């Protein structure tokens, strides 16, 4: 008997075809029910806020470029303002969350493709000046050609700004984030489109907000579908998104998103309704980010989310013959 890794001594679930629940009952063990993983050190207000504001910024830059190209100056300006406000506050939240904020620049001493946070920092370093230059030129009327070029540059990077944060969360051991790595970027992209469009619905007159209405509807649809798909795909880990405060946030987000989308549909000629719908969509998107954040934290606090899926993997027959 020389195999160093014998089958688990007790309660081996040989008939474990019945999905996670069965495995959970038969196989779950833990050390005094303590978490295996450390909960994120990140503060919800900072990091969920950073996710949300980054999404608002990136998608707004795309809307701004569309407004510019199609002759909708008020849509373009409002979106530029949203982009700059979003990315500034987003960066501020990120820096505030560091244990040593004065060392933020250490992020720029290296570029590491294996670290989504490194990639994201460089991305923001390229995106932010472009967004700021685009807005500054628009507001002051100086260097219009350069300003427009900067705005298009920001629009090219904007989509990446909205979705790299999903990669950042997914590349962790946090079960609710890592197991959602396929759908999370779509959830974030959809909710970013909805929130940027929501802001445009609030800030621009009816005559210019046709594209924002359609972007709001499409974004909401992607957001809702991606969220559902993600939970269906992740087995028992979906509980982290459905129970507790994360569950409450995710449900509130869905309700607000549906209400905001319905209002958007009916708002072609009603300015007040457009404003209310835009606000609902922005709130929905913020709730999504806080919900995803809370689900991640919850999935680190209960060892079941770590043990049960991993046990199912570990109890599969070893790949080398004993």
């Amino acid at each position, binding site marked *: 008997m020389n*195999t*160093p890794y*014998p089958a*688990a*001594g*007790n309660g081996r679930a040989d008939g474990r075809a019945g999905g996670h629940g069965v495995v959970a009952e038969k196989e779950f063990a*833990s*050390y005094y029910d*303590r978490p*295996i*993983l*450390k909960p*994120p*050190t*990140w503060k919800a207000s900072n990091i969920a806020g950073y996710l949300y504001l980054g999404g608002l910024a*990136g*998608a707004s830059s795309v809307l701004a470029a*569309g407004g510019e*190209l*199609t002759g909708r100056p008020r849509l373009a300006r409002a979106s530029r303002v949203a982009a700059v406000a979003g990315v500034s506050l987003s960066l501020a939240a990120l820096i505030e969350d*560091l*244990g*040593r904020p004065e*060392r933020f620049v*250490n*992020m720029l001493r*290296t570029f*590491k493709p294996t*670290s*989504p946070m490194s990639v994201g*920092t460089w991305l923001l370093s390229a995106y932010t000046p472009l967004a700021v230059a685009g807005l500054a030129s628009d507001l002051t009327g100086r260097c219009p050609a350069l300003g427009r070029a900067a705005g298009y540059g920001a629009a090219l990077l*904007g*989509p990446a700004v*909205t*979705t790299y944060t*999903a*990669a*950042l969360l997914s*590349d*962790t*051991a*946090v079960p609710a984030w*890592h197991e959602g*790595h396929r*759908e999370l*970027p*779509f959830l*974030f*992209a959809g909710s970013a*489109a909805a929130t940027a469009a929501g802001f445009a619905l609030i800030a621009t007159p009816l005559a210019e907000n046709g*594209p*924002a209405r*359609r972007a709001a509807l499409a*974004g909401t649809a992607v957001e809702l579908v991606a969220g559902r798909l993600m939970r269906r795909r992740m087995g028992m880990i979906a509980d982290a998104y459905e129970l507790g405060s994360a569950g409450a946030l995710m449900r509130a987000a869905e309700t607000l998103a549906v209400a905001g989308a319905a209002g958007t549909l009916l708002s072609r000629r009603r300015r007040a309704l457009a404003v209310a719908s835009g606000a609902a969509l922005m709130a929905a998107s913020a709730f999504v980010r806080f919900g995803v954040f809370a689900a991640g934290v919850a999935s*680190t606090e209960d060892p079941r989310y770590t043990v049960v899926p*991993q*046990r199912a*993997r*570990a109890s599969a027959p070893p790949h*080398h013959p004993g």
Partner: protein
Amino acid sequence: MSERTAEAATRLPQVQEETGYADHPPRMGFFTDTSVCIGCKACEVACKEWNQLPADDPLEFTGMSFDNTGQLSASTWRHVAFIEQRKPMRAPTGAGDDGAGDLRLLMASDVCKHCTDAACLDVCPTGSLLRTEFGTVVVQEDVCNGCGYCVSACPYGVLDKRERDGRVWKCTLCYDRLVDDLTPACAKACPTESIQYGPLDELLERAAARVRDLHEDGVTDARLYGHDPADGVRGNGAFFLLLDRPEVYGLPPAPMDTTRDLPSIWRHAAAAALTLAAGVAAAFALERR
């Protein structure tokens, strides 16, 4: 399966080469044989002393057997776990043998695994986390900006932030002692050689032999953990002999360095970004004027 393949399967990658060290000592690490641990916590104390680690506050009684430390943390780099079980230590050898009683107290000293594929090191955006010439993983405290990414990346829950300090801390495998050819403080202090330090190749051979002996003695629960280069982190520079499933000790049963999924993660993020761009473009293009 021949003896030879069994041994071949238990060699861990010389990860220093992959990092780019041309000339380096053999990969060093820990073999923690929990079957001889007596729960004295000398390792915890020696580690605190040598590394001058502050106390974890608040000090409290947990009610978890003899474990009032609770977990590895920014200021606790060795943690002894205690598990009381109603179970004989070994299988009865025949009629009249009760298998050495019907209670067993499992004790195990946990530590940073110094993974071959270390997620903490992969995700660190400042380059603060570093692979040493010994193949171990250390935090450079003068670089770390306390972003906390490594804390969420570690599949073992090893790293944590020291709140008043703002930076993360973890076991260095006594890098400062290693460069002077000294044994790490915990291994030096361990009175039963439960913690063994040395070149990983040697430790792995010793561990395989120990498992064989224990099995022959009827301790069929003995198994190695973290020794397998085919696992989700390509093996640990600090591996263990356990007497129960890993999760019983608070260890993940099948940990993975999630950077393995990074290509897929980036692909999906890129596809979502393109979807966003195309969707907004369509929202403009569909205008009936």
